[in-house]
């Protein structure tokens, strides 16, 4: 079992991992890719770089530094976090166990822009199959998504109903995902979500589909998707943490853009360091 599992390899995640390693803790850092920062070409405002530096360069250097100092790093996509006595972090390839988890996966992306989407949140439109799937047992369920995260939700929903339709909202569907879907599959873009007090129908460019419940699991799970499922407070699309960077769920920490504030490398790195120091203290008490 790892002492700490850090999810995200950007400035918050890698800084935390580096500090945690220096506290002689056993650290795993899981990163899907180089993240938002990795796609930023010009950074001119970060300390100690005379010339423009790319985000990709910064992230790669940070990860290399963490590896050199002894952090275990894997490039995998996390699709779920479970918490019983310890934490289980499930990726598309493996499952890891840790005493503490730090979420540092950056800012949660906004959800899809479809007419009726916001209106029906909590009224048949759900972001958590394990929470709400039961309510739709033996009813018509729709799932919106196109990747492993959707499959994970789909798998939960299969326990409750045989009448499931998967909507990809016009997004590309990798072959290995498509092969896993035994349900009805609708690949054209969504136009509108309709209903009265609750969701009744999904209207796409090419058709209309009756649903009683609609679950959203688009692309890769965001920091907020993790937080929501595990019961951490979210406010204004950011994870709420205390002064020690811990959420309301004991042992679950968050740092960087996913907790809001200044969305800058320098602040994310600072968050990572602070979170690491708090985690070290937390683990000492835990023993």
């Amino acid at each position: 079992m790892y002492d700490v599992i850090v999810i995200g390899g950007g400035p918050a995640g890698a800084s935390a991992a580096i500090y945690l390693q220096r506290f002689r803790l056993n650290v795993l850092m899981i990163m899907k890719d180089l993240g938002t920062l990795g796609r930023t070409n010009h950074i001119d405002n970060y300390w100690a770089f005379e010339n423009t530096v790319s985000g990709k360069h910064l992230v790669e250097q940070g990860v290399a530094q963490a590896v050199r100092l002894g952090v275990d790093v894997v490039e995998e996509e996390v699709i779920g976090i479970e918490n019983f006595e310890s934490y289980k972090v499930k990726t598309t390839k493996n499952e890891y166990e840790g005493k503490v988890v730090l979420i540092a996966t950056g800012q949660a992306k906004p959800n899809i822009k479809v007419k009726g989407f916001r209106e029906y949140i909590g009224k048949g439109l759900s972001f958590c199959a394990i929470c709400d799937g039961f309510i739709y047992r033996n009813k018509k369920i729709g799932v919106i998504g196109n990747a492993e995260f959707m499959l994970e939700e789909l798998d939960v929903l299969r326990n409750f109903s045989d009448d499931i339709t998967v909507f990809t909202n016009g997004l590309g569907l990798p072959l290995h995902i498509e092969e896993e879907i035994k349900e009805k599959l609708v690949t054209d873009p969504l136009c509108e979500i309709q209903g009265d007090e609750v969701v009744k129908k999904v209207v796409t460019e090419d058709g209309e589909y009756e649903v009683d419940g609609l679950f959203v699991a688009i692309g890769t799970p965001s920091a907020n998707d993790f937080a929501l499922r595990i019961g951490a407070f979210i406010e204004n699309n950011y994870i709420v943490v205390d002064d020690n960077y811990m959420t309301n769920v004991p042992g679950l920490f968050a740092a960087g853009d996913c907790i809001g504030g200044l969305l800058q490398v320098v602040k994310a790195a600072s968050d990572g360091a602070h979170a690491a120091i708090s985690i070290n203290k937390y683990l000492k008490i835990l023993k």
Partner: protein
Amino acid sequence: MPNKVTTDTFKKEVLESDIPVIVDFWAQWCRPCLMLAPVLEEIAKDFEGKVKVVKVNVDEEGYLANQFRVSSIPTVYLFENGQVKNQVIGLMRKEDLVKRLGL
């Protein structure tokens, strides 16, 4: 600890209550529901004598969950004089919940 309410006791405990009642629709498997429990316990303490907090387990009380069209949990209702006054869906901090319930 907030009282557990069932289909049989709902009328007496909630609809005929002399004071406003917060009804928490929850389930054991729902992590956000479990994390909302301490928030509601605090609210029960803060508003002791003024507002009552009760819980409905949607797993056991499907009839009540259906009747109030609970489609996502946690869902919290505020009842006053036998009528629904407010509905709040999802996990949130105490101050936000109190505000949204209009307490």
